[in-house]
């Protein structure tokens, strides 16, 4: 059993993102012509990927269509395969909590990231646990839950492309961004 104590102080974990997180994703549906072929082989009758929303509301989640500005605060880090917030990162979290409380009309996103070891979907879950741990820590410090959203990028967005412990340590991180 992983000793993830639920005492608020140990609770936490990571987040964040820097790179592509800053941009607002722009849906570019494939045109009515169907597939864009990349191989020289073309097949017709391929989805035009329009999104009707499926009638499913975006409940309870921050609107980030305007983008998220990461980099305003420090990044927190995690041990391998862990979502536990380290003591050395509490100062960063306290600073962010203070900003949240002083700016109740602003919203914060927490993004969780992993190193390249591990598999994609496992790491996506681990990155979510890191983001959620950091959010829980902020809530413990008195921040309104409605003010903070989370996203996991798993291992999709490394800040260091190296294949060694130094790079991995940098990539296991939580990042904080102001919703624009």
């Amino acid at each position, binding site marked *: 059993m992983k000793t993830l104590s639920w005492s608020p102080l140990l609770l936490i974990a990571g987040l964040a993102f820097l790179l592509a997180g800053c941009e607002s994703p722009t849906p570019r549906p494939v045109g009515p012509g169907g597939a864009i072929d990349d*191989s020289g082989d073309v097949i017709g009758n391929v989805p035009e990927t329009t999104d009707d929303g499926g009638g499913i509301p975006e409940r309870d989640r921050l609107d980030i269509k305007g983008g998220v500005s990461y980099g305003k605060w420090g990044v927190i880090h995690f041990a391998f395969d862990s979502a536990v917030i380290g003591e050395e990162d509490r100062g960063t979290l306290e600073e962010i909590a203070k900003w949240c409380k002083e700016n109740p009309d602003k919203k914060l996103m927490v993004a969780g990231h992993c190193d390249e070891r591990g598999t994609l979907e496992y790491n996506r879950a681990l990155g979510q646990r890191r983001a959620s741990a950091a959010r829980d820590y902020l809530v413990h410090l008195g921040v309104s839950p409605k003010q903070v959203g*989370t996203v996991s990028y798993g291992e999709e967005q490394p800040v260091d492309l190296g294949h060694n412990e130094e790079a991995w340590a940098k990539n296991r991180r939580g990042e904080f961004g102001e919703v624009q």
Partner: protein
Amino acid sequence: MTLPSRSIVRLLAFAALALLPHVDSLFAAHDVEVVKPGDVIAIRVAAFGGPSGAEAAKILAADLDRSGWFKVVGNGGEYVVEGSASASSVQGKVFKAAGAPVISPSASGNLRRAVHEVADAIVEKITGNKGIARARIAFISDKSGRKELYVTDYDFHNVARLTSDASIVTAPAFNRAGTKIAFTSYRSGYPDVYVADLASGARRVVARYPGLNSGAAFSPDGARLALTLSKDGNPELYVMSAAGGNLQRLTRTRGGESSPSWSPDGKQIAYSSDDGGRPQIYVIPAAGGGGVRRVSSGGYCTEPSWSPDGKQIAYSTMSGGHFAVASVAASGGEARTLASEGSCEDPDWAPNSRHLVFARTVGGRTDLYILDTVRKDAVQLTKNFGNCTQPSWSGR
């Protein structure tokens, strides 16, 4: 593993599946011989007539070889295939010795796909096992600079890109009928689960709850999805309607659950969880109610794929900083390593429960390979197509 007399029952089921739209053949259960995995049947593909005969014969020979059941020979052969082809149709006749034709399959449409139908009809007729030449594979490639969703035939022809989200698209899963693909896209800024319908081109978001929505897998009947959601705080396993909604939560742990894969009867789901420390493969009743059992035995094990015959669960296991593909009996037991050269991840069983597709990384590049688990040889599927990952077979 042997093919017992119940192969006749299976054959009848296959007959119903196999001859879908255009294949016209003569099926009679009593004609089927008992063919065991490991058997290799010599077959000769004679020169085909017609304007596209040469191309069709070449495609057919490659299909029969890839099936694993046949060795294609230039002379002699226990079976001989004759035939002819135009640009849009193919007719074949398979003879054994000097007798009457064993099967006379024909198909029309795109020549390659028509020949694949004929190849599958031959495999199914002679061996009683499902063919895979018509199956397609969904996968992710970063060829465009971003991770997008693609589909390909099992021989890397008819490749098409299905998304242009320009964010991150990941975790595709075909339904068994091969008509829909569930996948995750970050195009909203969050990881959300979508279902694309290949015929209509419609794409719908089916899960966009707060936090993580990913790793969706269709139930065998296509009506439900198993997936990971963190809407209630921690990443947990859920089952929902494939049209969205009707959520049922299956797990309640402090770890993370990911990569669900259904048993072929739809009653159980294999998945990965690190609730007990390093991630392991577990099986849980799809209807909920507990009764979780672990089927892997230590190490770091993720990405299970339950074979369509129900017998095995393949998965990725980490050893020495790399991944290998291993498989264990669905009832548990000792695992066997199936692929370990380079780093091998994310296996998915083919509809015949004999072949596996997986992603292999060598020298910093990742491509898809198809492994024949009986012959124990792996054929590279994707080439010069960026990094290709997360393959999922249709037709299961």
